[in-house]
Every structure is written in C-alpha cells, then in structure tokens.
C-alpha cells in the first residue's frame, strides 16, 4: 500500500508530464476544427432563427431560464442581424484558421468562446456531441495543438528555407501532454457516466430501452434488417451497449486492450450513425479516439503515406 502511494506521484507525473510527440493532439485539432466548421455550415440556414434578435428563444428569456454570469458574447454584441451574422463569419474564419493551425492558440481561444456563446445563447438545441466539443475545446486551449501539422510550424521553416539558411529543421518537438490527457479523461468519463446512468434504469436492465429508441420516427435514419429488430436481439444489443460503454470508460486505459476497444467503439458509433438521425454526434465523439492512438503508430502511418506518395512521384 505504502509502495503504491509512493509510486503514485511518479505515475501521475509520467502520465501528465512525460513529453511525447504532439502528433495526436495536432490531428485532433484538425478533426475538431473540421467538426466545428461542419456544425456551423449546418447551422447557417437557420442561424438568425436560433441566435438572431427575433429568434425562437429571446436572449432575455434565455437569461431568465438560465441565470448566472456566463461566457456569452451575445450579451455583449448589439442585437441586430448584421452583428449576429458578423459573429458567424468571425467564428467560421477562426475555426478555419484553427484547422490549418495558423495562430493556433489564439484561434483555439476564439473558437471556444464563440462555441460556448452559441450554446449559452440557445441551450435547447444542443446535443451531447456539441457538449463534448465545448469541453474538448476548453482543454484544447491549453494544449500544444499547433506544434505539429500546422502553418504555425511550417511558416518559420519555409521562411528559413527562402532565406537560404543552411540550418536543419529540428523536427517536431516533444511536448507535455497534460491537456491532451484531460480530453482523454473527459471522453472516458462520457462513456462511464453513460454506463452508470443506464445501469440505474429498469428499461435498460430489462432490455426494452432500444425498442423505444428504434421506434422513434424522428430518430430513424436508414432501415435496419427485420431480424435485428426481434425482442431478443434488441435486448442483447442494449446490454452490449452498456458493457461497451463500461469498457470504453474504464478499460480503455489498459494499453493492451486499447486498440480492440477503439475498434469496437468505432463499429458501435458507425452503426449508430447508420441507424439514428443525430447530426454529427457520432463524429464529435469519434474525433477524440485519435488521442488514444500511440504517437509512434501515427508517425509510422504518416511515414508510410509519405513514402507511398514520394515513391509514386519518383516513379512518375
């Protein structure tokens, strides 16, 4: 016991502070940016209906129902169509810059503030995927997300090359992954809490919950084969979902099991994407799987792609 307690600070430091390649967080930044852009594009046709001065829920009602001081730029900017539309374009521009990694830190802050603002402005249209993006965005502000695969890294290299400087590129520098770890913890908590909420529910335990979910007309996307909709199959599917949520919440931290669980989780979310009409939710969650991939494996895959590309170019 004493030995375990003594090794705890060491394990803590290794987990949060042992430097590693920033490739996973950089890849996540790109996926995150793309998802924010997709969210904005999908919101665009009804942007003023949700957030404008004559929206479905007025700013005043929102502040009455959800009181308290909050990060919400809508309380600061003038309530006119022009300003609310300008907010959209600033948000979109910043999300694009974050995706390509230009002024990464600044843009991660702007994106987080804008995202939190639209959620606070209308909390009644957000789903779990939006919430996850907001929470990941909070920790992304602290992460070295521009240390790789970004214009922030490439521009100085190009400038030096242009000047004809002979000095070599130092390569991607290892970074402390504590902010990345917090997004990983957030993802595992998402699954673990979903597991806890379900095991407290009689409908999930007796196996009828998925019967309700599948027969909701508004949620159904593509048809599912009839043999998958039998009472027994739906029961097993429900119990399997609970078991998988437990595994993705807890066992994901066991290195030897990680890739198997990520593969199962990917299959799980893709099947939900096929069956259910919840815009972008599955992709919002899946984006954080990147953070669980070993940086060495990402580098290996990247080098493989590069080799194949350069090989093809040389052959051509």
């Amino acid at each position, binding site marked *: 016991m004493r030995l375990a307690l003594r090794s705890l600070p060491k394990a803590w430091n290794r987990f*949060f502070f042992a430097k590693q390649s920033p490739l996973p967080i950089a890849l996540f930044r790109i996926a995150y940016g793309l998802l924010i852009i997709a969210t904005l594009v999908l919101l665009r046709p*009804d942007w003023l209906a949700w957030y404008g001065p004559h929206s479905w829920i007025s700013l005043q009602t929102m502040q009455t129902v959800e009181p308290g001081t909050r990060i919400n730029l809508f309380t600061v900017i003038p309530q006119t169509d022009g300003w609310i539309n300008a907010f959209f374009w600033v948000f979109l521009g910043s999300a694009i810059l974050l995706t390509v990694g230009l002024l990464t830190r600044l843009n991660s802050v702007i994106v987080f503030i804008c995202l939190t603002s639209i*959620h606070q402005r209308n909390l009644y249209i957000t789903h779990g995927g939006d919430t996850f993006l907001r929470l990941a965005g909070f920790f992304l502000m602290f992460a070295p997300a521009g240390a790789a695969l970004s214009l922030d890294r490439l521009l100085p290299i190009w400038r030096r090359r242009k000047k004809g400087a002979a000095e070599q590129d130092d390569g991607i520098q290892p970074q402390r992954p504590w902010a990345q770890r*917090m997004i990983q913890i957030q993802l595992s908590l998402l699954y673990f809490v979903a597991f806890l*909420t379900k095991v407290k*529910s009689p*409908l999930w335990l007796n196996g009828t919950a998925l019967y*309700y979910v599948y027969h909701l007309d508004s949620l159904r996307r593509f048809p599912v084969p009839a043999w998958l*909709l039998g009472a027994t199959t739906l029961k097993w599917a429900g119990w399997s979902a609970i078991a998988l949520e437990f595994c993705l919440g807890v066992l994901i931290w066991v290195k030897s099991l990680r890739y198997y669980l990520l593969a199962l989780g990917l299959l799980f979310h893709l099947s939900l994407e096929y069956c259910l009409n919840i815009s972008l939710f599955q992709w919002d969650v899946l984006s954080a799987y990147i953070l669980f991939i070993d940086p060495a494996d990402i580098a290996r895959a990247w080098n493989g792609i590069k080799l194949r590309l350069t090989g093809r170019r040389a052959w051509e």
Partner: protein
Amino acid sequence: MKIDQENGNHRKWFSKATILAINLFLIFHIVAITCWCVPFNIPPFPQCRKLVRPYFLWAGLFQAWDMFAPTPWPSNSYVEATVIYKDGSRTTWPFPRMEQLSLTDRYFKERYRKFSEVIQIDENDTLWPDVARHIARLNSTPSNPAKTIILIRWYSVIIPRPDGSYYPEPWDRHVLLGYGVRPEDLQ
C-alpha cells in the same frame, strides 16, 4: 557568471511554479468534473456540485451524459401550431419533422428535432410564449397579421410487445398554449 546563475535559479523556480499551478488545475478539474457528472446523490457529490456550479456555468464546463437514459423518449410526437388570423381564417404550421425530410435536409434541420422535444416538456412552459411569437412573425403579413397561436403537441405512445413487433398507437393531442398575439410581438 553570477547573473547567469541567478537567471538559472529564477528559471528553475518559474518552471516549478508552473508545474505546481498545472497540477492544481488538473486536480481541481478532474475532481470537479467527476463530481458534476456522476449520477450519485450521496455526499460529497451534491456539495461538490453546488460549490463548483458558478464556475462550471460561467466556463461552459457543465455536462450530462444521459443519452437515451434513464428512460428513452416513450412516444412518437411532434408539435404544430394553429394560426388564427385577424380576418378569421386559420392555418396549421408544423415544425419540421425529420421523418418527412430528405436525408440532406435532416442534417440541416436536426436542431428542430431537439428543440421540438424540449418544448413538449411541461416544465419548459416558460419558452412557449417565445415560440408562439416566433410562429406569429413567420405567418403574418401586414394586411393579415396572426391574432392567435395555439401550440399543440401530438403524440402516439410506443408500447413494447413481447415478440418485438410494433403497431403504431392512435395519435392523441394536448394543447400546450393558446397565445393572443400583440402588435408589438410582430415588430
């Protein structure tokens, strides 16, 4: 030489202080987020939630992971509005319904599914007048403005059968709100 040593000491001290600050940040957020989202109501979870609530609301760290739990939505349902105009005519204005939209439109209009679910809940009755006003604005013309909006919830309960088969139950309705539109609502 002495200045270099002082600079080195200063840098070491700064690095230690940074690590300490990060550690405090990590410990606080791990404990606070866990207490916030686990569905336990035994001490110290409720106390911790109460303590961090102002910060979580401000920073947008609030969260709930109760996807289709504890109870999935138990009925097929939708909201529509009956619009009565100044000249006495009436029309029905339906919220976008996912099952009636194309695949592409469903991606763009999915927020209406969520919003429609929210306004069907009686505890959210504070939102109904805003919704009625918005529908009045969408359906008014200067010559014939909307005079009354009636928000109606239509629902068909889902009843599980032992063999897994599904038969849609008859649709029933429940009036959520009757709203008299004022001229200033249409501004």
